[in-house]
């Protein structure tokens, strides 16, 4: 078993945020982390989702492939990746608001990311994660390929968590 646990929490409607979340998870595995993958639920109601067939289709698929976040996940994780689509960060913000007490999250790493590093989607998540007591590590990378960039980010936050654990040991 690895010494670093990475929780990948994402919200996705059409699969774009899912793809970067998965790439971050692969990067974490490459850096020898244990990972868990979780999709947060839509705020939209079923009628709204059904009105857009691609959304419904992807939702049914993702509901099969992923489980929702579980209460024990945040305590297990050293790093929590928070992946959001560029146009809807409310679901991930709500997830951050549901995290346990600041005392129990202190020092844990939050790794927010969005396709194209969309600042307008990321800033509320930076704030929500910081309010939860987490250390926020922005996803800025040099790579132009978003999948490669997400993979590098997964590696980077895993290595960072490993270093922090060594320092605090």
């Amino acid at each position, binding site marked *: 078993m690895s010494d670093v646990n990475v929780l990948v929490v994402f919200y996705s409607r059409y699969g774009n945020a899912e793809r970067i979340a*998965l790439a971050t*998870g*692969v*990067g*974490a*595995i490459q850096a020898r982390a244990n*990972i868990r*993958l979780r999709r947060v639920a839509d705020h939209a109601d079923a009628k709204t989702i059904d009105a857009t067939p691609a959304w419904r289709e992807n939702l049914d698929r993702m509901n*099969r*492939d992923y489980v929702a976040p579980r209460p024990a996940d945040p305590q297990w994780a050293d790093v929590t990746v928070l992946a959001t689509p560029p146009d809807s960060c409310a679901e991930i913000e709500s997830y951050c608001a549901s995290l346990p007490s600041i005392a129990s999250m202190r020092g844990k790493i939050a790794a927010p990311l969005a396709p194209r590093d969309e600042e307008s989607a990321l800033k509320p998540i930076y704030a929500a994660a910081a309010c939860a007591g987490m250390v926020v590590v922005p996803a800025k990378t040099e790579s132009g390929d978003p999948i490669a960039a997400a993979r590098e980010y997964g590696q980077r936050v895993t290595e960072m968590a490993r270093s922090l654990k060594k320092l605090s040991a």
Partner: protein
Amino acid sequence: MLTLRKAEDRGHTDLGWLNSYHTFSFGGYNDPKHMGFRALRVLNDDRVAAGKGFGAHGHRDMEILSYVIDGGLAHKDSMGEQHVLGPNEVQAMSAGSGVIHSEFNASATSPTHFLQIWIIPAVEDLKPSYQQFAYPSSEKRGALRLIAGPDRTSNPAAAFINQDARMYAAVLGAGDSIDQAIRPGRHAWVQVATGAIDVNGVAMKEGDGLAVSEETSLRLRGSNAGESELLLFDLA
């Protein structure tokens, strides 16, 4: 030396949608006496309910073979591979430096029964890869059909794995037998997938496994009234 691992002594997980027997320690079943045999680390006998399966999860540094006995298994991974695996096909995924995949029963109405095998690779940090191929069922009737091995090319085709190990499959009718030599210094594992067989005089039933060391040959004989299916692993 032949050491029988009885089906009823295996670890067991029942999640409702998943009924799994673990020949070696796996997940919540942890027995230090059964952590694997040579490079063979996991041998799970899984029955998955219709439409259910294993959601997205990660692997690293493991050669993962799936062998469907009955039904179909839908596979999807972070390499972009998306396939359905059935009987008389083999799937070999080399997790290497890291891969995320999901596996589901491909049927919405019928259960799937498959064996999942994990073999520890000889080298870590390899580039992840995926292979799947079908073979005629006649090739394993009364014969050991190579399913996976360390040779890049083999005839007939077999999956490549990054370890000095070979996995064979065979189907034996009542009284059919196969003789297999074991090279000096090699070990073997025999797993009964269905039916019942006799190996060098040791009676084995479905789910039983047999660790083989310091033997020069094996006689595998079908002892079931109908057909029996087995896997044989040749291990360093």
